[in-house]
Structure formats: C-alpha cells, structure tokens
C-alpha cells in the first residue's frame, strides 16, 4: 500500500548537495574568483549592491558566485545579510556636485562648464559580438587627458540659478530620514521613502514603468538634464567628536531628469524634476528611477493621476524584487490542503450539475 512520503529533511540535504555540485560545474574548468567577478562583471556587482542596498563589492561578488549568476537571488543574499547589520545612524547628505566624475553627460545643452565627458559607456558601440573576446585578448591602455580643473556644476543648478527649474525641497538639517527597512511603508508615502523604495526597486520593473510614461501612460515630457557617474565621499556626523568624519567613497550614478513645467497664476512657470540615484554605474536604473519619481509626483504637482506609474500604492508595493520573487515562487510550496478543499467543492458542484442535467434530460425525453 502507498504510504505518504517521509524524509523531507534528507531530500533537502541531498538537493543542496546537488546544488553545490552544479554551482561548481565541471571541476576541470578553473573556479571563478571574487576578484574576477568584481572586475569583469562589475555592472552585475553594481546592480546587486544597488538593489541589495549594501555597498560592498566583495560581498556582492560572493553573492553572485553563490547565486550562480542569478542576480535577484544574489540581491536576496545581500539583503538577508544587510538586515543583520547594526544601524549606527544616517550619513550626512552627500554632495554629488563634488563628485569625482568619471562620466557626465547632459542632453539639454550642447556644451557646458566641464564639458560632456563620455567615460566608459556602451553608448555608440555597435552591438556586434566581438569574437576577439572569446579568448583572452590583450586590451590596450585607454588614452588619458589631463583634467583642466573646471568644476562640473550640476546642470540643474545652472537652470535653478535662473529660476528656470524648481528647487529641490530642502529638508531641515536635523530632519530624520525615513527608512522603510525600519518602519513599515504606509500611504501616502513621503518622497524620501519613495526614493528609497525606488532605489531598492527592481531595475526591470522601474524600466518598464518609466517606459510606460514615455508611451503616454502618465506622460511627463522628460529630458535627461544630466547623468553623472563617479565617486562621492560619504561623511558621518560623529556626536563624540562634534564634526563629520569621512567614511570613504562610494561610486554612484545620478540622474536629474528635467520635466515639463509647472506654473500658476501666482507663480511663473518653471521646469520640474525627477531624481534617480543608484550605487555603481547603473544608468538604466537611475534614469528609470528618475522617470518614475517624477510620475509619482503627479498628485503633488496637481496633475491627473491615473496611469500605473503615477499610482503610489501600485508602484511602491510591487517594486521590490526580493518580495516579488518570494511570493511568486512560494507557489512551489505544497498547497494540497487548500487544493483538497477546493477539489471537494468543485466535485460537489459537479455532482449537483450532473443531477440537474440528468433531470433535464429525463424531462426532455418525457416531452
């Protein structure tokens, strides 16, 4: 007789042993090192740090290796570690105007102080598979020019100096920053929490939402005012010593989107902003985030709210890929108790249907 299977614990252990085996793969192929991942899969590391919301290249590389290159799984690993880290406080707001810029472009001015700096970019590459990379290729050192020392003022500041764009709302220096990893999200959410949610949010989800605004579902008329990527110093205000101490630098990508104007009878029209910021070189993410940030400001700016990207609850509740993947994949867990209850009801309704149907057939025959 069939007896319900036992031995879940053994099965799990064996499955994990098999996982470790396939993760390593063919032992005759050299094992990949964390340095190799960090150096040569740098953008994957950037994405994992950004959505894992933990700036640690080495741990992110480890997570990618452990996750067999599944970036959402790697993000999850990093998040699960991050949540156990003690929270000392919040850094001082960092100043991206003082960024050590590696790339800075503006789509709204042909030239500007400091110039357009393309930096390392896929833009303008022809997407032709490079067979030369199939083996080990010698890569020449890139050409280097001296920096002329012109400060790269943020483009938005140049516009703001003339009053052409809204000023970013400045919060008081002592204002607490919201943290949705410490307080549950509630609606309506303020912009600080919204931006945190988007910064942790899934790149693909934000990309699709941002794209939807361009196609007319909550149009915002965006211009890429500026995208900059480089290193910024992080400072922490230490109570004990009474001043801010530098903690180190982080590489970030910032996007200032310039969007269609707003004005009123009392106020001259000016451009509005959408803002995106992500760890590492994550331009797609930063730009998508800026589009969605602007779309989520619809209500605040007196615009009609109807498109998915403008809907706070819809966007903020579904942006997190660790939550999303967990719940989607939980359908793999056993549900046979619930299914049994459903099965019982469906069978009963089918019996009733057959009875009715049978009665109908008899009636038809009698007529």
């Amino acid at each position, binding site marked *: 007789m069939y007896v319900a299977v036992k031995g879940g614990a053994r099965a799990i252990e064996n499955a994990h042993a098999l996982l470790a085996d396939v993760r390593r793969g063919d032992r005759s192929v050299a094992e990949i090192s964390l340095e190799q991942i960090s150096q040569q899969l740098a953008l994957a590391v950037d994405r994992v740090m950004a959505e894992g919301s933990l700036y640690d290249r080495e741990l992110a590389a480890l997570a990618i290796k452990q996750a067999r290159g599944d970036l959402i799984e790697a993000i999850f690993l990093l998040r699960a570690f991050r949540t156990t880290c003690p929270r000392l406080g919040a850094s001082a707001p960092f100043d991206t105007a003082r960024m050590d810029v590696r790339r800075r472009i503006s789509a709204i001015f042909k030239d500007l102080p400091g110039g357009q700096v393309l930096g390392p970019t896929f833009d303008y590459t022809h997407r032709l598979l490079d067979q030369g990379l199939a083996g080990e290729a010698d890569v020449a050192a890139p050409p280097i020019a001296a920096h002329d020392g012109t400060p790269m003022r943020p483009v938005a500041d140049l516009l703001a100096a003339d009053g052409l764009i809204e000023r970013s709302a400045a919060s008081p220096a002592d204002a607490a920053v919201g943290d949705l990893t*410490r307080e549950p999200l509630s609606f309506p959410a303020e912009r600080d929490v919204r931006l945190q949610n988007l910064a942790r949010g899934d790149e693909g989800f934000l990309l699709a939402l941002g794209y939807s605004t361009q196609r007319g579902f909550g149009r915002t008329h965006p211009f890429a005012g500026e995208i900059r990527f480089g290193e910024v110093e992080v400072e922490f205000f230490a109570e004990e010593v009474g001043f801010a101490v530098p903690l180190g630098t982080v590489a970030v990508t910032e996007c200032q989107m310039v969007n269609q104007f707003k004005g009123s009878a009392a106020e001259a029209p000016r451009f509005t902003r959408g803002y995106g910021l992500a760890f590492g070189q994550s331009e797609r993410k930063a730009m998508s985030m800026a589009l969605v940030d602007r779309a989520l400001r619809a209500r605040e700016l007196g615009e009609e709210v109807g498109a998915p990207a403008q809907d706070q609850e819809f966007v903020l509740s579904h942006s997190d890929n660790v939550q999303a993947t967990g719940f989607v994949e939980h359908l793999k867990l*056993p549900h046979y108790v619930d299914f049994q209850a459903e099965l019982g009801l469906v069978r009963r309704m089918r019996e009733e249907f057959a009875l009715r149907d049978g009665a109908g057939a008899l009636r038809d025959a009698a007529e």
Partner: protein
Amino acid sequence: MSAPVYNFAYLDEQTKRMIRRAILKAIAIPGYQVPFASREMPMPYGWGTGGVQVTAAILGPDEVLKVIDQGSDDTTNAVSIRKFFAKTAGVRTTTRTAEATVIQTRHRIPETPLGAHQVLVYQVPIPEPLRFLEPRETETRQMHALADYGVMHVKLYEDIARHGHIATTYAYPVKVNGRYVTDPSPTPKFDNPKMNDSPALQLFGAGREKRIYAIPPYTAVVSLDFEDHPFERYRHDGSCALCGSAESFLDEVVTDDHGGRMFVCSDTDYCEGRRGAAQEGAQEGAP
C-alpha cells in the same frame, strides 16, 4: 570580510522588542492588523517569514517547538523552518502536538485540541481579508475602521447566487470578538471552528505584507455566513486509510494512473498517535 554572528533565534533583541510590541498591540485589539517593521529573513518572503519572526520574538530557551506545513511535520518547508530554529536558538523541537509550547503552522490547525500553555503561530501570505475585493490598503484600512464589511457579504451572496455555495473553501473570513473581519490564513474552512474560544493564544505573522494580528485565548471567532446559508465545515466523506479516523481533515493521494486515490490524515502527528494507540491496544488484548 566580516563573519556574520547571529543572536539567539536569529533576530537581534531590538527587533524582537519591536515585534513583541506589535504582538502586544495585536492581542489588545483582537483581529486588528498591526503594521510592523518586518525584517528581511534568510528565507524568501512568502515562505513563512512572518511566522518565523513572530516565533523568533516569543521563543525562549525552554520552549518546545513544533513546525507543520499542510498539517505535516515532514513537509519540506516545515523541515527547513524547524532546522532554522534548532540551529539559531537551539530549542527542543518535537512533532508531538501535545508536547509543544509553540507551534508554527502553515495552512492547518492541529486536530489535537490545544491547551492554555500553547501558542499557535500562523504563517500568513495575505493578511487582508478584503484584499481581493479592494486592492488598495488605504481603502481597506478605512473599511476596517468603519467596520464597513458590506462588500464581503455581497461577495459571499454572489457566490451563492452563482454557484449555489459560498465558493470560499480556505482562508474563509471570520469575525473576531464581534469587531474585525479577519483572515484565518489559508487554512481549510474545516479548521475555522477550532479558532473559536481556543484556550491557546493564536498569533498571525505576515512578513512580506508587514502585519501581525492575534486572537487572544477564549475569544469569539465566528465564520461569516447567512441565516439561510449557514457556515458548513467541509471534509472528504470517508476515513483515513492509515488510522481510520472519520473526524480528521484528509489529504487525497493519487496512487496510480487509473483514478486510484487514497485518503489519509493531513495531520501526521494525529494520525501516528492514533495508529500507535491502536497497536498498543492490540498488544494488550493479545493473549
């Protein structure tokens, strides 16, 4: 690289205090969903992170823990969660319902009646009973505040009009202490009556949705229904092929390709207990 060091039952004490405050509030307002700052756990959202956080917050070193999924101690996720606490808290674990002081469950309430010394911790996927009628949290919170539950009764009525039955067979909504309509988690409605007037404390944790709620001991829990369509408990009409119970909720097992089925207790501890007792009885009776 810093080697991670984890606290007793994984969560740090600050977090446990935060969760305990949410639990106390939940007990004080039976059936009300208390928002809490749910943490990222080392298992995926939707796989019991809410229940795990509640259990971690209430677990003491002397506790005896039982973990079930679909009524069974041996299903993969139950095994995984039990191992997690055995490892991070070093507590004693058991499969015996009667021996456990804390029982974490997914989708079932044990058949063996619970006592006042026990806590039942439910894993909850969607804590909001109104969610599939109204997707917005801002709206459903207001509906709860106003006890505006008409939409739920309309749904149940429409079920009857369309199918001749209330088509909800699990996660069947209940009213707790005459006030809040509450989701019992996706337990089969067979289990709903066990929630009523239970001597055990019932705690519900929804990690992804960041909500905790509770049914204190000896609280009235009523399954929603109509006078002319009273709540009905459903179980497959038959008895367990292993222990012969005609009372327990049964799992259906497909035994061959030709429509063969057998029905066995979903609650494995209950089933084993009955089989053990039957065997002892037979031995005592033997000459």
